[in-house]
């Protein structure tokens, strides 16, 4: 029998779907019977989803420009002769 403590201990693997079938089945049974654990599971899953759904913000132009300039300077010190063009973009 799975307790709430057992469920919380296994929650990470359950969210990642890496539990073995027998454990998974026992955990699934537990959340159908325990509203609190169902809420914790559901809101944890939504927490992960909401973060995964966020694209990284565009880099501020000056930050990108300073990076490319630093790279050009580095290329010079390393003896790289090619132009740092972004024509391939």
């Amino acid at each position, binding site marked *: 029998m799975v307790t709430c403590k057992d469920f919380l201990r296994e929650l990470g693997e359950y969210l990642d779907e890496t539990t073995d079938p027998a454990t998974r089945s026992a955990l699934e049974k537990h959340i159908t019977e325990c509203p609190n654990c169902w809420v914790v599971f559901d809101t944890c899953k939504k*927490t992960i989803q909401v973060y995964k759904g966020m694209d990284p913000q565009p880099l501020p132009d000056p930050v990108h420009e300073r990076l490319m300039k630093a790279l050009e300077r580095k290329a010079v010190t390393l003896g790289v002769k090619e132009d740092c063009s972004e024509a*391939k973009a």
Partner: protein
Amino acid sequence: MIALGLEQNMAGPRIRNEADPVALEEAALVDQARGGDLAAFSELVRRYERRVYRTARHIVQNDEDAEDVLQEAMLKAFEHLDSFQGNSKFYTWLVRIAVNESLMKLRKRKSDRSVSLDESIETDEEPIVREIAVWDDNPEQRYSQTELREILDKAIDSLKPIFRTVFILRDVEELSTEETAEILGLSIAAVKSRLLRARLQLRERLTRTFKRKGDQILGYV
């Protein structure tokens, strides 16, 4: 110390999928860049600079240091491209450099005593759950992208470095448990334990914002 030889330590088959045109194109760019083609490396920079910056920003928690980390990581990657041999994804190799740079920044802040990733955590300690309430359906739709980003960033920033770094690599950058363990020099068990704690702590913080109006917080049995 910066460790650039990650892929040499990673067990398993080569990750590069020869049938994947994106992977093939990236491999070609890396090869060209390794041969001194700066334009090819610039294309790799363009692809990953936002993700590297985001990761660094979450770890160091200010824009100035995040920009320093971005620059240092990209310059080191360019200089040491010879040590990347294609056994891991290019981004995994790059983000390892960025994470190391970020952690060094944190360690230089002598006032910050909560930096060490080596801090021992009792892996068998029970996770803590206090706030239990159902969320609205799609609560993120109540907010503009800017507002939502602020809410999510603030929640991540409230975590200790040992938790937020694992969460960022696993659940934001979507690296595997094994890759995260390699990058941070942690055991698989430590990554799993810290990830669960990070997820639960973020869930608690977001529940205060996203819980369905009118619902009471339930108590845990």
